[in-house]
């Protein structure tokens, strides 16, 4: 019998396995729910700033039968915060979010501080990964990064950022270079600490927002720089992009991650037709996971397999109030079908 780690590794390398793995990476793709926190008595927002609690909550996700991976952190604000943005840690039900930007324009790049891996929440995340590495085996540890465009538009006001892609094109590229270099440093440190997989979510770098030209020029370019900047000694990489893909299938296929993941507005069938040779992950509706029934989740899970998804996962971050019975239904279905 394959361990979850072996199964994921095989799928990432394009080999046939007994059944698809069931993964929820963490980061933007939140996999923690209120019920889970209550079950193990480890809570947010404390788990965002305490490595022990972060590791314990990540362990609960696997041990309580939700998903076949560990993953940290549980938000997408660590990188922006380390570069100078102010973050509100949220509450038990709200995720941390940026409340004050570090700069007003891409041309203020000089004001930014590089990510310090020895302090702050970057260190919390790395410590949590080290704890997971020491204390667990069998399931893959996923280190999460916020994508280049999403990080860039968390460090400064997104509306200004999007406009400056055109208006201050050269400076925007310089800014993206800096942001990407920070992400590479953080990602490499995560792998050194013991992360098997790096998952990058770039929800603000969508084809719908940027259009094909800027999606290619900014999202794809810097995702690839980030992927290329990570060391080879790792199991694999996942890139998750939000929004409709129909205008940018050609561009997204250039992204050199092992796995591509989409949200629920993308039909898995259509994604499969457009990306024949790629390992695809997704995309059980998080709406169904929060408001549906285990039977409905079962049905959707089967639909994902049938339509060509290689790794089954929620389409987006889980809503905090999703019942555990629904969340567990994905994995239960996969085990039954095997």
């Amino acid at each position, binding site marked *: 019998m394959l361990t979850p780690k072996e199964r994921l590794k095989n799928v990432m390398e394009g080999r046939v396995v007994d059944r698809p793995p069931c993964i929820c990476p963490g980061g933007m793709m939140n996999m923690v729910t209120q019920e889970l926190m209550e079950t193990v008595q480890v809570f947010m927002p404390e788990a965002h700033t305490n490595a022990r609690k972060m590791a314990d909550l990540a362990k609960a996700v696997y041990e309580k039968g939700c998903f076949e991976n560990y993953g940290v952190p549980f938000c997408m604000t660590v990188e922006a915060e380390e570069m100078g943005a102010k973050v509100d840690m949220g509450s038990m039900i709200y*995720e941390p979010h940026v*409340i004050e930007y570090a700069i007003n324009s891409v041309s203020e790049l000089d004001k930014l501080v590089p990510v310090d891996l020895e302090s702050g929440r970057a260190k919390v995340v790395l410590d949590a990964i080290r704890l997971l590495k020491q204390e667990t085996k069998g399931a893959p540890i996923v280190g999460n990064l916020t994508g280049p465009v999403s990080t860039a538009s968390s460090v400064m006001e997104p509306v200004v950022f999007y406009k400056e*892609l*055109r208006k201050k094109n050269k400076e925007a590229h310089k800014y993206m270079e800096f942001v990407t270099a920070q992400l590479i440093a953080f990602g490499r440190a995560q792998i050194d600490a013991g992360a098997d997989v790096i998952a990058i979510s770039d929800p*603000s770098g969508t084809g719908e927002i*940027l*259009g094909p030209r*800027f999606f290619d020029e900014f999202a794809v370019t810097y995702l690839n720089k980030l992927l290329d900047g990570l060391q080879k000694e790792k199991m694999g990489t996942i890139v998750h992009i939000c929004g409709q893909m129909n205008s940018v299938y050609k561009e997204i296929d250039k992204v050199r991650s092992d796995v591509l993941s989409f949200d629920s507005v993308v039909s898995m069938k259509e994604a499969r037709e457009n990306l024949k040779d790629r390992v695809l992950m997704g995309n059980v509706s*998080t709406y169904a996971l929060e408001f549906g029934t285990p039977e409905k989740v079962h049905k959707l899970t089967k639909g994902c397999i049938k339509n060509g998804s290689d790794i089954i996962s929620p389409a987006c*971050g889980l809503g905090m109030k999703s019942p555990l019975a629904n969340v567990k239904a994905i994995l239960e279905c996969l085990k039954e079908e095997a």
Partner: protein
Amino acid sequence: MAGTKEELLAKLAECVVEMEEEEAADTAREYLESGYPAFDGIMHGLVEGMNQASELFDAEEYFVTDVLLCSDAMYAGLEVLKPHLEEENAEERKKAVIGVVEGDTHDIGKNLVKIMMETAGFEMIDLGRDVPLQKFVDTAKETGAELICLSTLMTTTMGGMETVVELLKEAGIRDKVKVMIGGGPISQKYAEKIGADGYSQNAVEAVRLAKNLLNIC
């Protein structure tokens, strides 16, 4: 050499579509200096340009970044023309409250909807992002707005939309205020589930929905 009114109106529209912020302001000045009425310049020049931009957006030729720049050009022209509007043109505009619900700071979609709705003649009261839920209700009450537009991009915060609907009921004004919702994880089904009046998938649709809900043709 000054152009005819039609030429200048067409040029105003073109500046908006082509995202030429400074040229839009310059053309607006030229238009005023030629003695033409500000109201027409706004409606048949700038707004017309924004409508063309939204058609391009609908056709997926323009994307969010483009529309944001078009709206900058529109606002630049508007700033020049607005002080010259005659009083009688200040018609009664429908008010709508808009914001991103508590816990979420993603406001691109919200900003886009706001721009499109302003262009379509609504008076938008923008509460920004990460807005405490009660504030939507209080603001609607204070301003007499007939519509609340709620946005979120996160699954974890969408529950706040249902709370706003509940708070409107508690305040006894649910029948006076329509609620429309949108954002990444939101769907028509979700709108029905929480008792919102409508859902729209994008900013262009949002304008149609708002007009429908308030019976404006």
